[in-house]
């Protein structure tokens, strides 16, 4: 039981971080960013290159991941999403753009970083073992703490800084924010960069544990969509809850349903569908997004 809880907390914290960036971008621009997973993978590869290959200290490598992705995100928003959103009759058209960017980043990742699974040396050795009730390697505990810390920092940023307030105003009502004097274009770009940066950060954190390969992008995006839906699209607290719930669902589902073998995931997905059908706005979301 303790083990399931520990697994849930660990999975939940990393999932929540992945979902945060996605939901931020969705809240600001109503864009379902299919390329989120690829951004996460790039973050992982940047940290891998700096820390694993060139021996740069881990924290610096993480910073490099964040910077790379923030710049990438800002450029993508400014030169692709912003003009497409302005020019399209139905805003869902951005989904095609997002998918195109996902393909593009996949191709770039393959050409630059190669097709192999990559991993970095452990940042801390050893396994925490509480009488076989909770077994958790120290590096996981550290990453989990770092993830929680980042989430707290992000919430702090959104709550207490000028940028955060502007972003929240923008997410709530674009027109109203504009009337209040928020520079909508600029903050859309900052928000997108921030969302991409979060993806890069979590990619860099997780490369120390799960490693990274170019195939992780698509599935990660889809998983992140699910978390966002569970919590409620475009709601920050929803993304965090969604991540934690999916983390626990997997931890508990696998622990309880493993004897059903092949259908464990089927059951998880079906229950997700039922949940969404009954409560489409998720836990915290506004109905009809």
């Amino acid at each position, binding site marked *: 039981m303790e083990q399931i809880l520990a697994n849930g907390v660990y999975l939940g914290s990393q999932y929540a971080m992945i979902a945060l960036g996605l939901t931020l971008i*969705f809240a600001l621009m109503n864009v*379902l960013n*299919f390329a989120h997973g690829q951004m996460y993978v790039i973050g992982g590869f940047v940290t891998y290159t700096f820390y694993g290959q060139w021996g740069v200290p881990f924290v610096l490598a993480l910073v490099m991941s964040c910077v790379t992705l923030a710049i990438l995100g800002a450029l993508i928003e400014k030169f*692709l999403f912003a*003009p*497409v959103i302005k*020019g*399209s*009759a*139905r805003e*869902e*058209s951005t*989904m*095609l*753009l997002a*998918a*195109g*960017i996902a*393909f*593009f980043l*996949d*191709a*770039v990742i*393959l*050409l630059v970083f190669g097709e192999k699974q990559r991993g970095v040396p452990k940042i801390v050795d050893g396994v925490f073992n509480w009488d076989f009730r909770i077994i958790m390697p120290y590096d996981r505990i550290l990453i989990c703490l770092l993830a929680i810390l980042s989430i707290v920092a992000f919430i702090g940023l959104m709550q207490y800084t000028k940028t955060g307030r502007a972003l929240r105003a923008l997410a709530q009502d674009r027109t109203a924010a504009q009337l209040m004097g928020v520079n909508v274009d600029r903050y859309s770009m900052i928000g997108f960069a921030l969302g991409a940066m979060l993806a890069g950060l979590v990619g860099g954190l997780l490369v120390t544990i799960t490693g990274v390969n170019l195939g992780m992008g*698509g599935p990660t995006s*889809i998983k992140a*969509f*699910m978390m966002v*839906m569970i919590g409620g*699209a475009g709601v920050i607290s929803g993304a965090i809850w969604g991540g934690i719930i999916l983390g626990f669902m997997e931890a508990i589902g696998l622990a309880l349903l493993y004897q059903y073998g*092949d*259908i464990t*995931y*089927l059951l998880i*997905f*079906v229950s*997700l*569908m039922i949940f*969404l*059908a*009954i409560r*489409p*706005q998720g836990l915290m979301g506004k109905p*009809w*997004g």
Partner: protein
Amino acid sequence: MFGFSSKQLIGVGLFLFAIFIGVPLVIGATGRWDFYFTLTSVALLAIASAGVWLTFYIGRINIGQGAFALIGAYVSAILVVKAGWSFWISLPAAGLFAAVVAVLIGLPILRLRGVYFAMITLVLTQVVTLTALALPVTNGAKGISNIPLPSGISVFGIPILPDFAAMENTKLAFYYTACIIMILTYAALYRLVNSRLGHLCRSMQQNEELASSIGVNIAYIRIVIFAISSFFGGLGGAMFGSIAQSVYPSSFQVADSVNFMLNCFLGGLGYVFGPMLGTLVLYFGWDLLFEFGKYQMLIYSTILIVIIRFLPNGLLSIRFGKGGDK
């Protein structure tokens, strides 16, 4: 004739001529026999994409067509292999089965809109793939292989449809079959969009509350449209299973669902023939870029991004600035 202008009739005539006579002539002249399969695929994927486009028409983003294509492929395969049906009867049966499933699933989920509907259909694709892996009737992970080719049908001794297994080369036969089904699909789609049902769909796309206030049973129409959409998906999937002579849980997966949706976006959501063009460009484009080897994906995605950047309303928006619902 049928309320078409003469210009439209000429267009349709040219189109039919191109695909039934032009393409075989060009392929015969250039010797690019491999294009038959590519174009057959385009036709079949365009059928499934037509369904997705139709759900867009009632304002729903459908990322679940892969699920219905897979259902169609399995139903046809099971009926042919295990029950010994003729493929030609299993084909509509596959479509109908997909439609029935769509009704059952649509009842609870069609209330959702926007990204919520998109997400739940995406999850649906996963669910169907996993179900195919788990069920005994689908043969689980091993899939169904060695499906016989479509057999002939004759009524009172007069052959109506030829026996594919007896043919020297089935490429042309599959190409014509796929094209005929595609044309029927798009003809039906065109009729539907320009008939009262289409107008009601459009009213729902723009405002469901207002539509219901004028007495439109929106729940019913949503179900009908979703069922028709899935019927197309089932048809396309079943035909594919027959060409590949095998069906696996991975024959249609999330990537396919996403691609069906992208086909619609690329062609243009406002144009009935958008998904057809979108499918052609997306699928055939990949094939044409084959020469670029490992840079294929890079070039492909770059072109895609450039298209959507400069034609955000789809390829067809380039010619018909507005009023292109024809």
